[in-house]
């Protein structure tokens, strides 16, 4: 089966399910939503991210029909929603405050919407049981909301909004109160529900990892505006502004002035030779003599029958490279890419080479956004186009990862994230060490300003 990428937003023939058309919402003088235009497509998992008070809940409430836009229009399935009351919209919302009915049991809370549809008793009971199982609340069905924990309440709210299987589901921070494991399980349940029922989800979350995991697209909001809408990887790898880069994940921001780069790039001989042995640079070791080798028949079988599927048999069995604490430095194999810009970031340092920078920015003040995990740290100067000297100020140990805070000489503080391949006791870089922070010429993003 051909796996097509789900990207209705790139398809001009696709009709959006939800259309915000120049929607503005004012509370008195305060502008909560500022001239917002956005399409959301059917079967999307649309995540809203943004700092507290940026208007996420307000956007949801407008969709659900609890707030009317001061200006502009909302369309659902092409139909103008201005005069459609909340109970006539095929939309269910999970409230940030849960809004559970305190006088009803968990069971009755979940059944509430179904009963309003006038379904028969057995159908309702079956559906409620299903929801209880899904949210692992079976044991609490008879309790009242004030008799269960905060996380359980959140799950009741989720179950209640899911029960009616609406066309559009609005979840306002649905998993915030759950522990990590339950949260991940529920995320996958949600994605599963989404896949099975084709429900469109709009979800507000403060957890970027969650947005990255579940969302088909992520919208980053700031003060009533959507700053960027893109797929999770695009938002992460190619943020369109310093705001987005800073908001999503950890980032190092290095300010400077851009200069168009002359091709070819910085001559090789400017870079000092390194003394670190490079595991990948060494010639591959010969095949172990005791490794199993095919006989003539096997050879024939491979070359005639399996060849079209598997390709030529590798003469030597593959060997994994020796574990290393630093990431492999690809610089030696490929020559430094040409083009892009050079970033003058501090006096007395060679400029940073950014091959993917927009040459149009030449002469402008720019900021280079670098993800901590894309940086390497080493005691000796590595043979890469970008190597910046600095001193280790702090080391944060996160179990699987370590974060080094490095004060660059004459420059800003940067964070370098390294996977802890070795036991912590064998770490060779410690506090106050003079180190080199290096990165490839394409691992950063140059942003205006």
């Amino acid at each position, binding site marked *: 089966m051909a796996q097509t990428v789900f990207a209705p937003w790139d398809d001009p023939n696709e009709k959006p399910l939800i259309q915000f058309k120049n929607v503005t919402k004012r509370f008195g003088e305060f502008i909560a939503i500022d001239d917002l235009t956005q399409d959301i497509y059917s079967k999307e998992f649309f995540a809203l991210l943004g700092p507290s008070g940026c208007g996420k809940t307000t956007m949801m409430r407008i969709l*659900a*029909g*609890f707030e009317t836009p001061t200006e502009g229009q909302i369309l659902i399935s092409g139909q103008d929603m201005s005069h459609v*009351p*909340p*109970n006539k919209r095929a*939309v*269910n*919302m999970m*409230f940030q*405050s849960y*809004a*559970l*009915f*305190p*006088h009803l049991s968990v069971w009755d809370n979940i059944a*509430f*919407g179904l009963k*309003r*549809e006038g379904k028969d008793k057995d159908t309702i009971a079956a559906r409620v049981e299903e929801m209880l199982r899904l949210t692992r609340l079976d044991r609490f069905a008879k309790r009242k909301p*004030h008799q269960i924990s905060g996380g359980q309440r959140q799950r009741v709210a989720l179950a*209640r909004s899911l029960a*009616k299987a609406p066309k559009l589901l609005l979840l306002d921070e649905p998993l915030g109160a759950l522990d990590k494991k339950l949260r991940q399980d529920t995320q996958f349940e949600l994605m599963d529900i989404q896949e099975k029922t084709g429900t469109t989800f709009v979800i507000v979350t403060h957890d970027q990892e969650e947005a990255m995991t579940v969302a088909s697209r992520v919208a980053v909001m700031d003060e009533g505006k959507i700053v960027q809408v893109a797929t999770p990887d695009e938002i992460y790898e190619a943020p369109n502004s310093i705001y987005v880069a800073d908001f999503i994940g950890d980032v190092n921001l290095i300010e400077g002035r851009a200069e168009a780069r002359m091709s070819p790039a910085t001559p090789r001989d400017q870079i000092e030779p390194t003394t670190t042995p490079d595991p990948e640079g060494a010639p591959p070791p010969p095949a172990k003599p005791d490794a199993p080798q095919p006989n003539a028949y096997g050879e024939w079988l491979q070359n005639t029958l399996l060849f079209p599927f598997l390709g030529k048999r590798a003469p030597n069995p593959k060997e994994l490279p020796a574990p290393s604490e630093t990431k492999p430095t690809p610089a030696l194999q490929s020559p430094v890419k040409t083009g892009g810009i050079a970033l003058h970031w501090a006096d007395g340092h060679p400029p940073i080479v950014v091959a993917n920078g927009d040459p149009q920015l030449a002469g402008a003040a720019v900021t280079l956004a670098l993800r901590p995990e894309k940086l390497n740290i080493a005691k000796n100067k590595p043979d890469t186009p970008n190597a910046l000297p600095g001193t280790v100020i702090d080391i944060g140990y996160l179990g699987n990862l370590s974060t080094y805070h490095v004060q660059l000489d004459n420059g800003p503080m940067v964070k370098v994230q390294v996977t802890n391949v070795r036991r912590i006791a064998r770490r060779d870089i410690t506090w106050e060490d003079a180190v080199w922070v290096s990165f490839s010429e394409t691992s950063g993003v140059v942003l205006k300003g």
Partner: protein
Amino acid sequence: MRRFLLIAVPYLWLVALFLIPFVIVLKISLSDIALARPPYMPQLDLSAGWEGLKSFFAALDFENFVFLTTDDLYWKAYLSSLRIALFSTVITLLVGYPIAYAMARAAPEWRPTLLMLVILPFWTSFLIRVYAWMGILSNEGLLNQFLLWTGIISSPLTILNTNTAVYIGIVYTYLPFMILPIYSALERMDDSLLEAAEDLGCSRLSAFWLVTVPLSKNGIIAGCFLVFIPVIGEFVIPSLLGGSGTLMIGKVLWEEFFSNRDWPVASAVAVILLLILVIPIILFQRNEQKQREANG
């Protein structure tokens, strides 16, 4: 010791202000009427010693309670009081709920003012306010004058000295007792619950029945008891606004006590009234208890 004192205070209160008066009334109800001062026999004379005590208890009997069953005036008065209390509670609820609802829905900055307006009548004497109603409801009163002036009626309506006037007086007097508990229940209610109900397919009206009313249930119950319990024993309103046809036990009690000066019979009436009230009072306490548990 301190804990013991803390617990003792409410009990002392109860003993001093409820139990002792009750025992005195009970004792009088078991005595006989006498032309004396105080107007009943026997008197407890501790100086006579043990013999005196024995003859004192020997003189007590249930004669007055038996008398209450022989004259149907009394049980009719009890029944009539219960009926009037029940109807006026229902009317007060029907009038009070919308007022409480409107207050709870009003803009937050208005609520203290509205609350103040509800409580304001308490600042003048209850008696004066009932007299004012006599002025309003009488044949030449403000209401009749107004209705005659507008031409709705051609001859004055007789309202004063009927049961209608009694209902008007009771509803007017006890309305705040209904409004306040309902208001406090409604005000606590989270608006997002109504939004959630609408979101799940309720119309405004069904959201009201399925969410607002159940959530104000405790306020409704509290308000109803706060009206029902005192209205059963009410005597000022039926005496001033009611007519000869208005039969209420409070009025009977008053007449036995002050007109007939039959303290023992009046006390017997009071003891039975109290026994009748014990049931709703216990139910009321239960409701309060449940509410506290639900909130806690």
